[in-house]
């Protein structure tokens, strides 16, 4: 085999400086959020972007103590919306990380919203991604959060290219594209009325590659799903659909074992892995440098409906 890829070889001065710059900007935004809001929360799904934001929060609010561990507690809880269709590895990772770090975790359960009747599924196996919004808004209301820190990036999708760093949501949690506030310099306008809230996106200016480079450089722990493993999948419409209890094989389809990794981890009904032998962040960086399929395109079944579907969901309060 080839010699193991070293992170230093993948990080020329250009990337190193750029990561420092992105880190500085993200930390600035995190401190701004904590300073400007009374009850912020950090959205933590166990996904790689939220893992990066979590590390940035440690750098913003904790001190690096002995053994390079960050001591202290974040000035906000972590919030996760559990669709009930999450990969078990991700939930296990989430709980382990929260325990290790000694942080507070608030979980909003979509199942609770279904029980309350605020979410009605048209069929039990339907994708729950769109419905997360309801559970999220209910959690915001219950805990009176006034700012949610998220790991969304402008390079992910066209509707997000115009997203602000501080994105205003009205009393219904809705995003109004035409009502967005201009953001000049770093003079953010985070003023809201009671009942409204703000979304804060510290890694807006990061690309997928930046995220992986940072994960490699900082040794950020991720759920095992992100790295190559063998999994039962079904080939469907150019995607690899993982075989789970909510995504069974259809009549006539074959199930095969393939070496795969996930590039995003979301609801099991709409998140697909890609074939890959990359077993760590450095190998993923090497792969990302050659990739020709964007993150959401390869892995999200629900975004395929139409290329404007993200904008519609955003208007409804989705991320």
């Amino acid at each position, binding site marked *: 085999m080839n010699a193991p890829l070293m992170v230093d070889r993948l990080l020329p001065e250009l990337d190193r400086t750029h990561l*420092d710059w*992105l880190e500085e900007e993200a930390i600035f935004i995190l401190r*701004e959020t904590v300073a400007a809001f009374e009850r912020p929360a950090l959205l933590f799904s166990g996904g790689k972007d939220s893992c990066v934001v979590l590390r940035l929060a*440690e750098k913003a609010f904790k*001190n690096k103590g002995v053994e390079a561990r960050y001591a202290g507690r974040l000035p906000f809880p972590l919030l996760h919306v559990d669709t009930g269709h999450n990969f078990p590895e991700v939930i296990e990772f989430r709980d382990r990380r929260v325990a290790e770090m000694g942080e507070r975790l608030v979980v909003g359960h979509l199942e609770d919203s279904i029980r309350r009747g605020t979410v009605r599924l048209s069929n039990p196996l339907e994708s729950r991604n769109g419905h997360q919004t309801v559970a999220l808004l209910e959690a915001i209301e219950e805990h009176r959060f006034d700012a949610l820190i998220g790991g969304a990036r*402008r390079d992910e999708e066209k509707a997000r290219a115009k997203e602000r760093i501080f994105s205003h949501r009205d009393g219904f949690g809705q995003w109004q594209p035409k009502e967005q506030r201009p953001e000049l310099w770093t003079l953010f306008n985070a003023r809201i009325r009671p009942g409204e809230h703000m979304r804060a996106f510290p890694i807006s*200016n990061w*690309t997928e590659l930046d995220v992986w480079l940072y994960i490699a450089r900082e040794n950020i722990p991720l759920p095992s799903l992100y790295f190559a493993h063998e999994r039962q999948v079904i080939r469907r419409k150019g995607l690899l659909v993982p075989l789970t209890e909510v995504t069974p094989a259809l009549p006539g389809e074959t199930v095969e074992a393939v070496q795969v990794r996930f590039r995003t981890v979301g609801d099991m009904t709409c998140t697909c892995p890609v074939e890959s032998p990359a077993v760590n962040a450095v190998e993923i960086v090497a792969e990302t440098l050659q990739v020709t399929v964007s993150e959401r*395109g390869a892995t999200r079944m629900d975004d395929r409906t139409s290329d404007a579907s993200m904008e519609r969901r955003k208007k409804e309060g989705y991320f």
Partner: protein
Amino acid sequence: MSSFASAAAPRQRGSTRVTDHRALRFLTAGSVDDGKSTLIGRLLFDSRAILADQIDTLEKRAAGVPRADGQPRFDLSLLTDGLEAEREQGITIDVAYRYFATRQRKFIIADAPGHEQYTRNMVTAAAGSDAAVVLVDITKLDTLAAPVKLLAQTRRHALLARLLRVPSIVFAINKLDAVDDPGHAYEAVRAALLEFAAHADIEVAGVIPVSALRGDNVTQPLDAPWYSGPSLLQLLERLPTTQERTAGDLLIPVQYVARDQGLSGAGAGEQPRIVWGRIAHGRVKAGDEVQLFPSRHMARVAEVRVAGERVAFAEAGQSTGLALDRHLDVSRGDWIATPGTVHETNRFAATLAWLDTEPAVVGRKYTVRHGNRWVQARIAAIDSRLDVHTLASIDAHELRVNEIGHVIMETQQPLPVEAYETNRVGGSLIIVDPASNRTSGALLVKAVDQVGAQDACGAG
């Protein structure tokens, strides 16, 4: 806007930074059919920032439209038309951010629509940019006239970039593929641009001929007898990024004050507080004497931190945490400075870009943000409005959306404002309408002592 470049400095003490490795933030200004979207699409496409599935979607949408060999089989401009609302209208209605990289540099494009009614988008995009690329559609000009008459929008875009002090202004003359004698046409337009720039006191970083449609001279240099300069991308790769000065007096707006949790468990009652802020200008190290504003208390810096770690010093552009040698009342919105260097005033002259559909009202109470402080303020007077095509002052007493004027501001508390010319942090403010919470205006402070500035020491 402050730069982040020095973020690496304390961790790499001893090394000298010779190359500018920071990402270049540049804005693109042009009108709907100038080919701006095509140019950006071309930069992304040729630098391979476009991924296969996006191309797939676009090819599907463009099915049936014939294209030349070797060219993308879709309209490049579709890459950047983001929202449904504007796809329907066929125009871009907001600032969109795009990312691409070459081996030499990372780039962030702030894509600002060039419509007259969208001056606010251009102001927003220009506020944080290191460079502006102003697109000139050569097919709209009479290149046989002597001298060539430039379009009003070209002048407006360049003047706005100049007003916001975007450090480098580049003209990209587009659609050279569509004129008969490109060499002559380019020279004629170039001469007109340079003459206009000289009059307007605009320093031109380059006048680059391109064909965004064909890809000529966008990433690869043009092979033509009449042009020997760089391609647009080659020029962008070597433009400087904005760096606020690191020498001289220190100024830090206090962003956030934190209890030091790292020392918890020591059993001591009083824990040192860390005062965080991004340095506007200057440099700070342990032992420095500093003064706090508005309290005017003096203190000495006991410790300097960056991102949770102790460092020897920090400088302009970096967010730093200071532990002070005594317990003082410090909060968000305060300023930390070299003693005796700050002059506060509650009345100053400024250029105001109005962004709200409700016109600016003289005498009305607004809220302004300067640094990290929010104070009440009012527009004491509107002196004049700027003709955005010429930057000439027109007598005016009101400002409407997308208009820019010269105003006198009065604030309820004195602020340590600086001229925007000398520092973007000390010299910029936003105006917020307290009724709607909308960001209604952007203020650029003019020379502070120009109009009735009073040192707050005397103003009591």
